[in-house]
Structure formats: C-alpha cells, structure tokens
C-alpha cells in the first residue's frame, strides 16, 4: 500500500499526480490519497533594505515557482499561481470523506485551483465539484469535512509529514516526487 498525502494548493502535489499514477500502473499497487494542509505562502515582497532572511525567502520562492512551472510545462500542465494562496481546507476534508475512487475529484480540484483559481473552500461550488466527479450525491457538511481534515492532519504529523506530496510506504516517509525511484525500488522488492 502506498499512501500519498496531498494538498490542492501545493504545486508540488499537483505535479506528483501523473508520476504517481504511472508508478501505480507499472506495479498495480494499492494506493490511498490522503489530505494534508501545507503552509504554502506567496512570494514575499521585499524592500531595498530587506534583511538577508527576507531576501532568501523571496529568492527561494521565486526560484521554486520558476522551476515548478518549467516541470509543469514538461507534463503539459497549466500552473497559474494565484495572487494569494487559497484556502483548500474544505476540499481536503471532502477528499478525506470520499468513499469511492477519489481520482476524478482530485484531478478536477487541482485543475480548478491551478487553472481557474477556484475557491476550494466555498461549500456550494465544492459540493457541485464533488457530485460531478464522484458520482455521489454529496451533501457537504463543513464540520464533518474539517474534522476529517484535522484527523488526517494529526495522523500525518504523527508520521513526521511536514509538507506535500508525502509518501508512506513500508513505514518509510518520503517528501517530494523526486523520491519515486526509491519508492519504485521498495515496491519492486516487495513484489
């Protein structure tokens, strides 16, 4: 079983979807998608007298964006960074509550956030997205969603997850899709 923690506002999570699906297709391994609330932040604005720390954060954030957009282009993914980082809590909670195959919802939610800058914390829009993609008559209950997210969050943090995408396989934690070669090796060793 491969467990993958994701957040819809995390570009690295979005870029991990296709490589993870390719891995799963190669090995036929069971897969569980789980939500994890990341701390994505906008690239800070800096003034002429910014501290080294402020400059470092700014340069790092800008560099990461450029690199993520570069690899997104390789995958044919549109990655339009919103002006302000959106709250995705309700969508993440909804993911935790999905009973069937969550992949259509995951794909739709990522595309909605990164192409249309959709508000994934808006109950009505989210309920429609869930119903359309899961085929379930989804009645969104804010409290249940948020409780489900907090439960998943606590479980992830207990496992040492600090960012997404995070992978748990055979009790090992890997953060970032750059680890997929090692994860692939673990799966091959298992089977």
């Amino acid at each position, binding site marked *: 079983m491969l467990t993958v923690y994701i957040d819809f506002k995390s570009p690295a999570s979005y870029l991990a979807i296709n490589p993870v699906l390719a891995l799963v297709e190669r090995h036929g391994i069971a897969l569980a998608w789980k939500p994890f609330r990341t701390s994505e932040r906008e690239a800070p604005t800096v003034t002429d007298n910014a501290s080294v*720390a402020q400059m470092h954060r700014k340069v790092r954030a800008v560099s990461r964006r450029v690199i993520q957009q*570069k690899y997104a282009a390789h995958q044919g993914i549109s990655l339009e960074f919103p002006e302000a980082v959106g709250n995705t809590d309700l969508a993440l909670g909804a993911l935790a509550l999905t009973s069937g195959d969550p992949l259509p919802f995951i794909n739709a939610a990522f595309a909605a956030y990164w192409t249309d800058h959709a508000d994934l914390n808006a109950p009505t829009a989210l309920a429609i997205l869930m119903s359309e993609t899961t085929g379930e008559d989804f009645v969104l209950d804010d409290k249940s969603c948020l409780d489900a997210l907090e439960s998943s969050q606590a479980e992830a943090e207990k496992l*040492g997850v*600090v960012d997404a995408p995070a992978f748990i396989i055979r009790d090992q934690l890997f*953060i970032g*899709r*750059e680890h997929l070669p*090692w994860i692939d*090796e673990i799966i091959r060793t298992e089977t």
Partner: protein
Amino acid sequence: MNVLQSDSPLIVYVDVKSPYAFVAIRPTLALEVELGMKFDWRPLTLDIPSYLGSAEKKEGKVVASSGRSPKVWNAIRYSYGDARRYAKRQGLILKGTEKIWDSSIANIGILWVVEQDRDKLGGYFDAVFPPFWRRELDIEDVDVVKSCLAAAGVDADGFDDFQSGEGRALHDDLQPQFHPHGIYGVPTYVIGDEVLFGREHIPYLRWHLSGQKGPAPDIAYEIEPC
C-alpha cells in the same frame, strides 16, 4: 567572476557544510565522468543563521537555539534524516553537525584546487566531505584544510596566503551576487540561463547536456541499487 557565467557548460555551487551538497557530490561527479565534461565547481558559503536561525548541539542534544520554531525543527530533522539515508546508500556516514560551521576556508580550497590541479577536485571532495560529515574534521582550521589538499595530492604551498588573500577575495566577491541572480542554496546548478537548486535536477541536466533527445525527464533522486 560572474556567478552565472562560465566557459564550462555547467556551473555547480557547493558548500562543505551542506548535507544536500554532500549527497550531491558523487552523483554530480559521476555525471561529469559520464558526459566526459568538466564542470565549473564553485563555492557558495551559506549564511544559515540568517534564514534558518541558529543552533548548537552537544552530544547530539540541542544546547542553544534561536529563531527556530517547532515546525522549522521538524523540517530540519526530516531533511537531515533524508540526506542521511541517501548518504548511506552511497556508503557514506552523515552525522548531524554540532554547530553551524564557517566553511569558507574549506570552500576556498575548492577554488585553490581548480586553480592548481583541476583533476584532483574529486580527491579533494573525498578528503573533505566524508570526514567532515563523520565529525572528524575541523574545517575552520587552515592546517586541517591543507592536510586535505595534501591528501588529495594537491600542493598546499601558498594556500595560507591564498585563503586570506586572493582566494578569499574571489570567494567574498561571489557572495553578494547570489541573491540578485536567483541563487539561494546548494547544490545549485547553472546551465545556460537556468538556475536549478537540488540534485533532483540531475536527470534534466543529463538530458540537456547530451542533446535534449526525447522528452525532458522529471525531477528524481537517481539511485544505485542498495
């Protein structure tokens, strides 16, 4: 020296005190050999306290820390653990450092080797990085760095003057150029006008440097079988 310009097809920035650089050295040297190229290796001495806060450890326990939240500590713990397991795959030991070192002398050693005997650079990295990460090397001591140069077969005569004079000036001249040119950590690879942080870009670098045939690969930490 301009931080983005070189006669080599690839510039590689490293810092002896970075665990990420440590685990990137061998894969990057291997790429150099595989492609039959000579990369332009340069030092980037990280100013860690300015952006991650500072800490001092004794016998594995933190005895002093400033500016680090529990979240930052968790991320640092994961990062070290992650670098450690990849180091282990390379047959290397990576112990957490007891303090944030001034690695400038050992990093100026890179400039010295490049100037004196470029082909010994791999030997110098072998003499510095693994023992430092086993906590066996005081890289703030000029004589220790000179012994590493000697171990790599590089003449260390003149290094005293170089590390405090010409080499120090070269090193210090690079430092203020990094942020304005989008460089913030190590290993950083500069290829053409692209600045890429992290060894996960090695597959892309190989693809780029060998003619860009087929689709561009995704990021990956390439692994050798355990």
